């Protein structure tokens, strides 16, 4: 039963994530939190590991959450689940609908979906930042983690300096840097 739930949940995640990478972050978070599979903290740690290991973020997350919930079989069902919608849709397009992108209905739908996905990523990032850094999960709550806020500010500052120097801050590099900051700041204070 658990395997079926895992499979179906990840079919849903695969079927409704647009735009690659963090396009799935909002739905993935909603599902793993509402099923009680992960806490917000675990979710963020899993994203970090998925980002620092090779392969697509969505596949890594599916395998990780699946394994956490149901061992090897869980990992397998979740990973296959997240692939199934992509695979079917793309096969149908490649085989049957060569002019898929030229249909005006498809263009119309994408016109709405694109800004929606960007909004979902932004709002997910903001609401996680509010709860993790400032302890605001509901309106009226406020218990900030100043060490986290400090790390966040250092990362943003580093990002801005690197961009000013015409360098693109590498995600894995930033993760390693934040790990060092975490050991220093949480270890000392």
């Amino acid at each position, binding site marked *: 039963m658990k395997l079926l739930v895992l499979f179906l949940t990840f079919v849903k995640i695969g079927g409704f994530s647009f735009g690659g990478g963090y396009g799935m972050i909002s739905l993935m978070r909603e599902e793993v939190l509402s099923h009680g599979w992960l806490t917000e903290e675990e979710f963020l740690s899993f994203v970090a590991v998925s980002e620092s290991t090779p392969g*697509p973020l969505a596949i890594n997350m599916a395998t990780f959450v699946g394994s956490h919930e149901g061992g090897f079989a869980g990992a397998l069902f979740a*990973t296959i689940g997240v692939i199934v919608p992509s695979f079917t849709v793309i096969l149908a397009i490649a085989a049957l609908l060569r002019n898929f992108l030229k249909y005006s209905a498809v263009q119309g*739908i994408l016109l*709405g979906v694109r800004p929606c996905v960007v909004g979902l990523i932004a709002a997910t990032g903001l609401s996680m930042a509010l709860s993790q850094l400032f302890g605001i999960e509901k*309106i009226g709550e406020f218990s900030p983690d100043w060490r*986290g806020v400090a790390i966040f500010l250092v990362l943003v500052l580093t990002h801005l300096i690197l961009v000013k120097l015409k360098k693109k801050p590498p995600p894995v590099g930033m993760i390693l840097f934040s790990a*060092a900051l975490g050991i220093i700041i949480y270890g000392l204070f």
Partner: protein
Amino acid sequence: MIFPLFCAMLKIGLFTFGGGYAMLALLQNELVEKKQWLQREEFLDMIAVAESTPGPVAVNSGTYVGYKIAGVWGALAATFGVCLPSFVIIFAVSLFFDRFLRLRAVAYAFSGIRVCVLYLILRTAVTLFKELEKTPFSMTVFGLVVAGMLCASLFASNFSTVLCILAAGAAGLVFCTVRRKAREKK
């Protein structure tokens, strides 16, 4: 054809960090330039389709490329190849992760890393926002989604990502149809 395709995709899955878009450069180098299995134009079509359909860009492009090169079995081999490294590596990591997190230094490091993930997500949102075509319609959708989701989270009420995407798609469809009708009248 199937086995070389599987191996090529396995290699791409193993050496891509950070998801779909990073992979497109590798795919192009391997399939278009080195192996010449695909024409440049087909490759560009593939990117457009992979970006506009649901699911991870890596899986979408793998399936598409595999099908173009060797039919349904090619699609299966390519998709399997690109996902296999992820699966093996992450499964291995997941076996030790809980124990690993119990080490004090690691727990501190992850307290920092979690903050970094927030930064990475927000940074992606900023990049995508800059790339977004800014029309009154797209900005309205963007604004409503951000406001709606933040309010739902602050007032602890339910928010459904799926419904939100469906509604935005429907709104886009209606907007497009109305705009076309208006133009036809002129």
